[in-house]
């Protein structure tokens, strides 16, 4: 979706201002937000793609005025409500009011190291051959879906070159919406900065995205 999350190329946010000697967490609540997000995800009722979409559907004003752990918390609230675990009324009351969905599993303390070390690989077997090869010139499609996509606006309708091939991976545009993994070939596509931003762009800069084959056509 063309939401607030799609930030590449937007202007007006000012300098980056990295914090000197930044702590890992700014307050104990950030640790808890991280931990409950990972543990609740461990129940296995939503995918990383659905979680990203839950965050990017925050109102743009809310998204842009929230810190990242706030965004995570608000996204988690949506996911827990959507999947029948914690209702809005329960959040307001701060206590359980109704029975919830039975979780597929609950992440146990002793399995955390194994689960984190395994992660969630998205590579999948796929029959057939990729349409493109390294060095091919391709053009990205122009789309404006209301649902989830990982094709950023700044790289739509642009001509670039296939630089890397990553095999087949879960396709977020379908997986985020419960339409299955539909694995698709994944490539790194490199664009000259001038192709993306016009004649005033740095002549010696190149920007790449990782793009599924569904985003690409021959150029």
């Amino acid at each position, binding site marked *: 979706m063309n939401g607030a*999350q*799609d*930030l*590449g*190329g937007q*202007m007006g*946010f000012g*300098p*980056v*201002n*990295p*914090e000197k000697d*930044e702590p*890992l967490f700014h307050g104990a*609540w950030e*640790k*808890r*937000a*991280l931990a*409950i997000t*990972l*543990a609740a995800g461990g129940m296995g009722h939503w995918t990383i793609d659905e979680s*990203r979409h839950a*965050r990017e559907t925050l109102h743009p004003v809310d998204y842009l005025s929230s*810190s990242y752990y706030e965004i995570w*918390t608000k996204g988690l*609230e949506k996911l*827990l409500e959507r999947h029948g*675990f914690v209702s809005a009324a329960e959040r307001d009351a*701060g206590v359980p009011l109704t029975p*919830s969905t039975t979780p597929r599993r*609950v*992440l146990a*303390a002793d*399995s*955390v*190291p194994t689960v*984190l*070390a*395994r*992660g*969630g*690989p*998205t*590579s999948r077997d796929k029959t057939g051959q990729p349409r493109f090869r390294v060095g091919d010139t391709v053009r990205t499609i122009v789309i404006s879906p209301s649902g989830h996509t990982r*094709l*950023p606006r*700044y*790289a739509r309708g642009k001509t670039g070159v296939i630089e890397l091939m990553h095999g087949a*991976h879960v396709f977020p545009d379908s997986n985020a919406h419960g339409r299955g993994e539909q694995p698709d070939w994944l490539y*790194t596509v490199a664009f000259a900065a001038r192709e*993306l931003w016009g004649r005033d762009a*740095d002549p*010696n*800069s*190149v*920007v*790449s*995205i*990782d793009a599924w084959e569904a985003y690409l056509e021959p150029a």
Partner: protein
Amino acid sequence: MSGDHHHHHDHDHDDHSHLTPIEARVKALESILVAKGLVDPAALDVIIDTYETKIGPRNGARVVARAWADPAYAARLRADATAAMAELGYSGRQGEHMVTVFNDAATHHLVVCTLCSCYPWAVLGLPPVWYKSAPYRSRAVLDPRGVLAEFGVILSEAVKLRVWDSTAETRYLVIPQRPAGTEGWDEDRLANLVTRDSMIGTGLALDPPGTTA
């Protein structure tokens, strides 16, 4: 809660009236999840401890130091970074599909995630706030030289800037250039010169102490 927002540092942490709105929100969510048996409180502590003490940029620094010290390892990183990092015990969440990109005299690499906050947790730990913030995510792709200058990295215009927007589950780690004057150093000494930012591309590896660059 009124707008008159006193911060008492000796207060009872169970008293919600002293919490900021987001603190209260997270606390409420956690209590409900625990009360319903949906999350195991002990698991939460293990998750936090993992990212506070076990997974962080020192992991990435070990990878870089070995790549500098051992050309065969560098070649394995180029061929299959996920497998080469697993040799050192680094794998898993937000590091399932790793690619390393090597800086040299002609090319400088910079990593960003314009769409969210994708970052190679397995080797760098949790991302800093600026990496996830709108200023960095918006400008790293549009004005990478300007962003680098804000980090104090001024590169010649002859150096090609190569920006990697992490739009899939591929995670990128920059292998910075090895500083001069470190010939013969062992991996432990080399790793001390590798900063987190140098592995994102917003910094360079440190020069050896006592040298003037």
